[in-house]
């Protein structure tokens, strides 16, 4: 049967590989928008007469580049291990409380990194809450949390969902039969994980790892707070007082991202090839004697990544409950409700638009051989490494100086555009994995039965691709919720979200207000993620 289908596919080969012109046009059009921030950086460097060579020879810059790459690599490795193992435990084993873990494990993504950093300091820095609590027990030496250790810990704990989400979505679709076969041959759960599950999920793991890597390149809040010097802290320090230095450092960041994304494409080109899909319910692997250890592991991650920040935020909020207009939480004011509602609808709509816009490119890259797809994917993906401020300034510059752009300036559509450019990479990677996981033979079979392109899209591709798209949607939604610089600068005037308030408040030591809004942010994202991403994906369970 396979051979017959393969023959069909082979005969139809040429038409399968040649993409529809409309698809190419849309994909290229979308990708051109993502060129805007890179073009802006080049233009800025030329305009300011910045000397790239001289900056690259500067010792401080070299240290910043090295620090950035070391941190990004370390966090990527740790977050990938963490995210992958958590996804497997939650999706494919009989871990107790899987439904609850599945609902809360994505949430660290929405904790703004500087909030995570503040929580880490409040707990583990000398004189912090945890340190004080442990002192009576005779434990008075803690690892230094400032610098690399702190930045690495916070970012790993906050970014592992970038790997967890796509891998969990993928593992829900891997046929259980292969795993059962391995188990029937006497392999234990961890051997099955290594030999069967890991190869099946490789595409998703790579996709998540790359997003983590790029996120760390662009990360700014936690590294600045924890005093670890990277390219982004150099850009921040120079943004106003030495703009040509800021422009060069931003360009270096952009180039690093382009290089790393291109390298990743070359390494993984073959792995993305052909992956199977199952619609059968999952029978979880028995953890047996590993169950307590596995449960403790998942609980520890949730405690550190989510409960600890929530506890610190709760403490801040409680201090403001009796406060006045300034030092209070602002709980009763109508403003908070508006901010929460704005946060919710803007993030949902921006995530929908982002997924819809990058989907054609995902199809083009995963299904067809097109010269346009490689550079388009690279530029869309690499854009994620640019700081939000750069993207915002690029959009201001390109739009406000033309009369058409000026009418759109600081409108809602423009804000959504900024989110698309900033976070398109997340949706693209998730969508590419989803699209390439659909077995081509299903499509070919349908074609040979006379089903047209749209019918195949609706009946075959659509349902199979949807979980992957939902994952991308969820990641973009949570990123938008916590996004700060672009929101503050490009949103319609007097439009406030939870995130726009939080950062400024914390800078003014108005922690009660900042803490309350952060808690609300976690709550809103938790509800939306569960409603729109987690619940629809949870499979009908079956006893092992």
């Amino acid at each position, binding site marked *: 049967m396979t051979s017959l289908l393969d023959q069909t596919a082979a005969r139809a080969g040429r038409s399968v590989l040649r993409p529809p012109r409309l698809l190419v046009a849309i994909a290229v059009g979308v990708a051109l928008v993502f060129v805007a921030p890179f073009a802006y950086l080049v233009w800025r460097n030329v305009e300011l007469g910045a000397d790239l060579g001289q900056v690259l020879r500067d010792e401080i810059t070299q240290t910043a580049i090295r620090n950035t790459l070391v941190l990004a690599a370390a966090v990527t490795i740790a977050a990938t291990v963490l995210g992958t193992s958590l996804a497997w435990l939650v999706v494919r084993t009989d871990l107790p409380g899987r439904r609850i873990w599945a609902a809360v494990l994505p949430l660290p993504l929405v904790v703004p990194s500087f909030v995570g950093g503040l929580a880490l300091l409040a707990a583990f820095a000398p004189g912090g809450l945890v340190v004080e609590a442990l002192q009576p027990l005779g434990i008075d030496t803690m690892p230094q949390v400032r610098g690399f250790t702190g930045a690495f810990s916070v970012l790993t704990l906050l970014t592992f969902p970038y790997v967890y989400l796509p891998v969990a979505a993928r593992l829900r679709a891997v046929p259980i039969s292969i795993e059962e076969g391995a188990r029937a041959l006497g392999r234990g759960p961890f051997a099955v994980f290594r030999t069967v599950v890991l190869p099946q999920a490789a595409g998703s793991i790579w996709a998540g790892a790359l997003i983590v890597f790029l996120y760390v390149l662009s990360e700014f809040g936690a590294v600045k707070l924890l005093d670890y010097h990277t390219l982004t802290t150099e850009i921040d320090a120079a943004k106003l007082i030495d703009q040509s230095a800021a422009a060069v450092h931003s360009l270096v960041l952009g180039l690093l991202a382009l290089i790393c994304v291109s390298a990743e494409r070359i390494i993984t080109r073959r792995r993305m090839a052909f992956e199977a899909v199952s619609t059968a319910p999952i029978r979880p692997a028995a953890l047996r004697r590993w169950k307590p250890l596995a449960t403790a592991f998942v609980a520890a991650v949730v405690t550190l990544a989510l409960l600890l920040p929530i506890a610190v935020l709760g403490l801040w909020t409680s201090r403001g409950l009796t406060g006045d207009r300034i030092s209070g939480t602002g709980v009763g004011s109508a403003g908070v409700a508006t901010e929460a509602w704005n946060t919710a609808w803007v993030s949902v709509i921006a995530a929908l638009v982002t997924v819809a816009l990058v989907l054609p490119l995902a199809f083009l890259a995963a299904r067809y051989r097109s010269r346009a797809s490689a550079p388009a994917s690279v530029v869309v993906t690499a854009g994620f490494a640019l700081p939000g401020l750069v993207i915002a300034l690029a959009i201001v510059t390109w739009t406000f100086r033309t009369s058409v752009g000026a009418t759109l300036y600081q409108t809602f559509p423009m804000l959504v555009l900024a989110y698309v450019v900033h976070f398109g990479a997340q949706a693209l990677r998730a969508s590419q994995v989803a699209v390439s996981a659909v077995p081509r033979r299903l499509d070919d079979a349908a074609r040979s039965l006379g089903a047209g392109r749209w019918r195949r899209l609706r009946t075959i591709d659509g349902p199979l691709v*949807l979980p992957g798209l939902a994952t991308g949607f969820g990641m973009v939604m949570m990123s938008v919720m916590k996004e700060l610089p672009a929101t503050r600068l490009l949103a*319609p005037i007097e439009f406030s979200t939870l995130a726009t308030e939080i950062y400024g408040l914390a800078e*003014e030591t108005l922690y009660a207000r900042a803490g309350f809004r952060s808690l609300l942010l976690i709550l809103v994202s938790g509800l939306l993620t569960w409603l729109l991403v987690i619940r*629809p994906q949870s499979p009908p369970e079956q006893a092992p």
Partner: protein
Amino acid sequence: MMRLRTVLRPATIAPLAIVMLASALGACGGGGGDACDGRLTVYSGRTEPLIGPILDSFNEQSDIDVCVRYGDSAELALVIDAEGDRSEVDVFISQSPGAIGYLAGEQRLAPLSEATLGLVEDRFESPNGHWVGLTGRVRVLVYNTDLVDAASLPESIFELTGPEYRDKVGVASTNGSFQDFVTAARGRLGDAEVLAFLEGLAANGAQNYASNAAIVEAVGRGEISYGLVNHYYALQARRENPDLPVANHFFADADLGKLILVSAGGVLATSDQPEAAETLLQFLLGGESQTYFSEQTFEYPLAAGVAPTGELANQPLASIVGPEGDLAALGGGLEATAAMIRESGLGR
């Protein structure tokens, strides 16, 4: 496998989707070139909880309506710069002299009238009259009251390079207020002496922090004993957490460490309602506003004969020298300041 029917079950999604779409369409109607509908457009680097109440009061009392975007002073200044001649912004309120000085240097601010500038002492306005100070903050040494004996506190900032302060002092080397201090110091002492001091701090193990707020937190935890910050952070932090063991120490009157920095306001050269814009600045320098800033945000009032309150009452403005002449450097001198801080190794 996703259960399509569950996702798309109208009862769950439809109401949510409809309301969200309605919000989006509603929002699309707004915005655009003139989202403020002829109202006075203000970009404020001071946060809403701190300045919002007084802007509300201005809305009520005058026939001018304001429309405000809050953000980081430096980022807002960069956006105004990028907006160019089409900018709709009328008034820029800056957290520090650095950001507004940048816009003045880019020729983006209109000279203010004598009616506005005359409200404050000359030393609290830009030399060319492009911006005016609204409130004052004084640089202090914040210290941990559990760890430090108040009697042993230094008279001069230059003592901080001594061995008793080794590894115990926090600075925010990339923060605007620290940079402004360095710029002012360069104006008064010359580059060589300031660089030597910064190198001394670095060699003495001064710890680098992200911001004034982060320093006050670290001092409160006892991670460090001292920090160089603006005075109101400790007061603000204690308002929320009265148990926090932090207090301000003022350097001696003539000491460079006791520098006054201002938050400031200016009118954009491209504003189409410069008179209303100046009316707002004058209101912010009036009795009601200055009293509000003094009592609610713990800052120095700069105008209207309002007296400072709390611990500032013992430190009258007249006792603090500067920043006469020092601010002139803030337009173009910041780049050199940043380079000097980098060179000193502070924060590395």
